[in-house]
């Protein structure tokens, strides 16, 4: 049995699943902190109910993020032991720092926030949720510092048969970190915005009883969603330009650009032939990819065939083309979902500005479904990022096939992969059940911890 393939599947399943919960934690922690701040500063009771209501959904989501994160911490050693040996000198440091500096902070202060409602002074209690938000987002930063090393290795030398760190500052200053982290940060805000918009819209369609709650929540969410989605797009643009420089193969795959073009056209729709590396059918807009890649109409963008030849020369014989079909469609799903979210968020904010949230409208009917858009974008974004780096696990340094644990058999990985998937499936059902239950509950009941049984 092919343990490499199953190990990759397991990593993909557990990581994608983990990242269902992470962005909402990142964004909603900040929004809950903001709502509580408004309540503490103004004494506005609506914001107290909002804090308790959204805080409850935050907690349910947070628990899933925490437990699936434990797997991430150990999976490198379990399934990727040769990777761990080869880059542990560098990669282990940000992971350890993440636990020490961020994870301790978010979990300790979340406990204090949850249990401290009537034990802590109001302002101290407020500080705890801000520390949760800070801890969560710092945690993302350190994980992305680790991931950025895999995308754009820096601050190391090859010595003693492994990669050794020589410059910790370079690891942090890696330009890849500073396009990737903002991208993730704002996608978290977007996710939280659309999560709230979807739930409020759904409640409004089902005859909301607490209009002040719905109105204020909608307002907070619409602002977060618009700021988030616009910024994700802007950061994403500079991220893509950076990618063209450091991982041109990923961009070529995302665009199904088989041959170098100058100026480069952008594909709107391509059916390709991966084996012969050519288009079967394609609609392309001339010069658009040049504009996106380097802000002018004339630059050259490298194609898959040329890059393959160049890499063979540099790294020796091998197949350096990633799985183009999935990357191409992931990129389109991500960008498409992103653009749709910008439009919907703008529409929502217009309704807020005109004070026309409550009445039934197309917007309210669409928003509950739009709740899935950030999840689609988050998932496909990571699929593109990680799959587009293949065959490398650390770009240009170590190949994925050389990273897998040699002593873990295919049967063992298959067993764990199947059981993880089943377990995660069951937990997802329980999670969605609880989220739906609390999303339906009256905010006043949630605030008083007396949500009646239903079902």
């Amino acid at each position: 049995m092919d343990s490499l393939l199953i190990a990759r599947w397991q990593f993909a399943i557990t990581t994608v699943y983990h990242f269902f919960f992470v962005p909402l934690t990142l964004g909603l922690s900040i929004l809950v902190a903001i709502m509580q701040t408004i309540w503490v500063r103004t004494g506005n009771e609506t914001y107290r109910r909002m804090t308790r209501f959204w805080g409850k959904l935050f907690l349910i989501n947070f628990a899933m993020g925490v437990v699936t994160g434990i797997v991430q911490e150990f999976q490198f050693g379990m399934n990727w032991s040769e990777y761990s040996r080869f880059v542990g000198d560098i990669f282990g440091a940000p992971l350890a720092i993440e636990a020490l500096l961020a994870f301790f902070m978010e979990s300790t202060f979340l406990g204090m926030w949850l249990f401290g409602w009537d034990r802590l002074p109001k302002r101290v209690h407020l500080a705890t949720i801000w520390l949760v938000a800070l801890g969560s987002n710092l945690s993302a930063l350190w994980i992305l510092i680790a991931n950025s090393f895999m995308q754009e290795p820096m601050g190391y030398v090859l010595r003693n048969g492994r990669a050794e760190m020589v410059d910790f500052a370079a690891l942090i200053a890696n330009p890849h970190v500073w396009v990737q982290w903002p991208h993730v940060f704002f996608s978290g805000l977007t996710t939280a915005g659309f999560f709230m918009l979807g739930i409020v819209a759904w409640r409004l369609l089902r005859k909301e009883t607490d209009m002040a709650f719905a109105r204020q929540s909608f307002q907070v969410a619409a602002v977060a969603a618009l700021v988030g989605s616009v910024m994700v797009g802007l950061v994403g643009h500079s991220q893509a330009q950076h990618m063209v420089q450091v991982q041109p193969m990923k961009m070529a795959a995302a665009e199904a650009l088989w041959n170098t073009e100058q100026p480069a056209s952008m594909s709107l729709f391509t059916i390709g032939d991966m084996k012969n590396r050519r288009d079967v059918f394609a609609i392309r807009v001339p010069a658009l990819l040049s504009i996106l890649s380097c802000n002018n109409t004339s630059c050259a963008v490298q194609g898959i065939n040329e890059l393959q030849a160049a890499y063979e020369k540099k790294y020796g014989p091998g197949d350096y083309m990633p799985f183009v079909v999935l990357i191409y469609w992931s990129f389109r799903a991500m960008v498409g979902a992103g653009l749709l979210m910008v439009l919907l968020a703008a529409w929502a904010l217009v309704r807020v500005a005109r004070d026309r949230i409550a009445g039934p409208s197309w917007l309210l009917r669409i928003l509950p479904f739009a709740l899935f858009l950030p999840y689609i974008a988050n998932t496909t974004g990571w699929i593109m990022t990680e799959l587009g780096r293949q065959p490398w696990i650390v770009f240009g340094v170590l190949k994925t096939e050389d990273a897998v644990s040699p002593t873990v058999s295919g049967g063992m990985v298959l067993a764990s992969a199947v059981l993880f998937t089943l377990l995660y499936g069951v937990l997802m059902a329980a999670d969605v059940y609880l989220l739906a239950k609390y999303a339906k509950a009256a905010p006043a009941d949630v605030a008083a911890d007396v949500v009646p049984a239903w079902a």
Partner: protein
Amino acid sequence: MGLNTLWFILIGVLFTGFFILEGFDYGVGILLRVLGKNDEERRAIINTIGPVWDANEVWLLTAGGAMFAAFPNWYATLFSGFYLALFLMLAALIVRGVAFEFRSKDQHPRWRDLWDWAIAVGSFVPALLWGVAMSNIVRGVPIDAKMQYVGGFFNLLNPYALLGGVAGLGVFTLHGALFLALRTDGEVRRRAEALANRLWPIVLIVGAATVVASYFATDIFQRLGVNPGISALGAGAAFLIGGWLIRQGRFGWAFAMTALTIALTVVTTFRGLYPRVMVSSLNPDWSLTITNASSSPYTLQVMTIVALIFVPIVLAYQAWNYWVFRARITGKSALKY
């Protein structure tokens, strides 16, 4: 003292903190269904660890991260070698963590019963497996010249390791019972006290058997010498004093003694290992040590600076957390879980 030794000690400290803190969390989880006869009592039991269980678990994540950063080969060999055991542990920790958050969010009795089982089993399995894992590390497992674990899953289930597992399970359960005696009131408190009384002699027997077995199964005592040092003697003494305190009804001090027993046992284990981190049963030269498993001096320097700054901060705010929620959980307490 070199940085390699410093990091060996620091990881020992992290595991000590983890076993003391998560130890009573496991015990509380294991005893949930034993000591909590109705829903209200079970909620009280869970709420005793409500504000802290998650942060306690981060001690494990930090220990794992520190192993990865300071001794990548240790991290790689241990976790790929103990693959299925670790998978079981992770699965248990996942359902347990979710269960704390989910169980009281719906009132249906079957829902709560299900998650209560998840808490109990999810606490039992890791409490047992940690002892098994630690025993195997000191006993030695088949590690080849290339630092690869070449045994199977059943290699890990040898009698000595299983005995160590049961001893760990017993100590954690007793530790948890004492914690509950300290943090609850009424019926649950009385039951926890009675259970601690009954459990102590059993744990004493299993623990003593493990110590004796360690003479035969490991080289720990040969390495430590005829006088195994203050940590080993102290661990035994703390446990005996703990038993006496339980008889006296002084459960707070007894809890401190089980904590000390756990701490000194970890210290003794790490002292017996040093300078090895994993013993090879095939050839002593193939053991992983603080030298051949370690990161570069530069990485250890960076990590040392980070640890010196942040470990005290973490300890301070975790201590504050325990201080804020030091009161007993009584019938009047607001329950969040």
